[in-house]
């Protein structure tokens, strides 16, 4: 039985990199550079990849996960909504697992100079859709989620 629900959530991640904002931006804007770090997890087998970095352009990453993720096929389809060179990228995206949509999100990446480096802030909010079978992990849900409320803004420095 599929229980229909739509759950809304937001999270924010912050990182500081000892590199100029232009370099951090380029790692998002350049296809080859982005492919070096924005890939699926270990054991991920890429089936389809598209990259069109301009407002209205699409980025697609479809592939199969390893046995640790039940060999699921995940599909990421995104559209760039706003691009300010070296400063900001806004895109919206849809995630599907085995052909079933599981979430629709909007993500904003802001890059600001900090000292000689750059501070990256990722703010993502979206709606989780029904259709993802929960493999019995529900028992530890409450405490974990309550902890997350306090930890929703995380600051971390990468040396």
């Amino acid at each position: 039985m599929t229980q229909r629900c739509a759950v809304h959530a937001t999270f924010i991640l912050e990182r500081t990199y000892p590199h100029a904002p232009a370099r951090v931006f380029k790692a998002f804007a350049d296809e080859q550079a982005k492919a070096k770090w924005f890939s699926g997890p270990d054991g991920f087998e890429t089936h389809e990849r598209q990259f069109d970095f301009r407002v209205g352009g699409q980025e697609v990453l479809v592939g199969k996960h390893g046995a640790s993720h039940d060999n699921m096929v995940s599909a990421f389809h995104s559209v760039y909504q706003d691009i300010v060179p070296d400063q900001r990228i806004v895109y919206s995206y849809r995630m599907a697992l085995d052909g079933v949509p599981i979430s629709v999100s909007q993500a904003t990446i802001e890059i600001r100079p900090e000292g000689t480096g750059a501070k990256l802030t990722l703010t993502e909010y979206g709606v989780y859709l029904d259709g993802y079978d929960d493999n019995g992990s529900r028992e530890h849900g409450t405490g974990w989620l309550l902890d997350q409320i306090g930890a929703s803004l995380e600051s971390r420095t990468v040396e």
Partner: protein
Amino acid sequence: MFQALADPSRRGMIERLSHGPASVSELAAPLAMSLPAVVQHLQLLEASGLVKTQKIGRVRSCVLDATAMSQAERWIHQRRTGWERRLDRLGDYLNQTRDDDQIKGDKS
């Protein structure tokens, strides 16, 4: 959901319900507020899908909807950890390349 959990009284009600179903008056007992105020909080929790209520006779019983909790948990957790890993890899990539994107040394 996060708005529903933003209030300490509502978090207290969720914590109470995580131990098992409770009536509205049982939920209100430890809280320093009027019953109508408790009902208002409860309505918000119900609208968020976190809590279900059912009237049995004259008593309204409240129960936590574990399904909504765990689905949200999984979604947020996956998005966050996915990005944590990617931002780590971005840092490694930036450290291993020069301004012209050439790989430093023999590292690939």
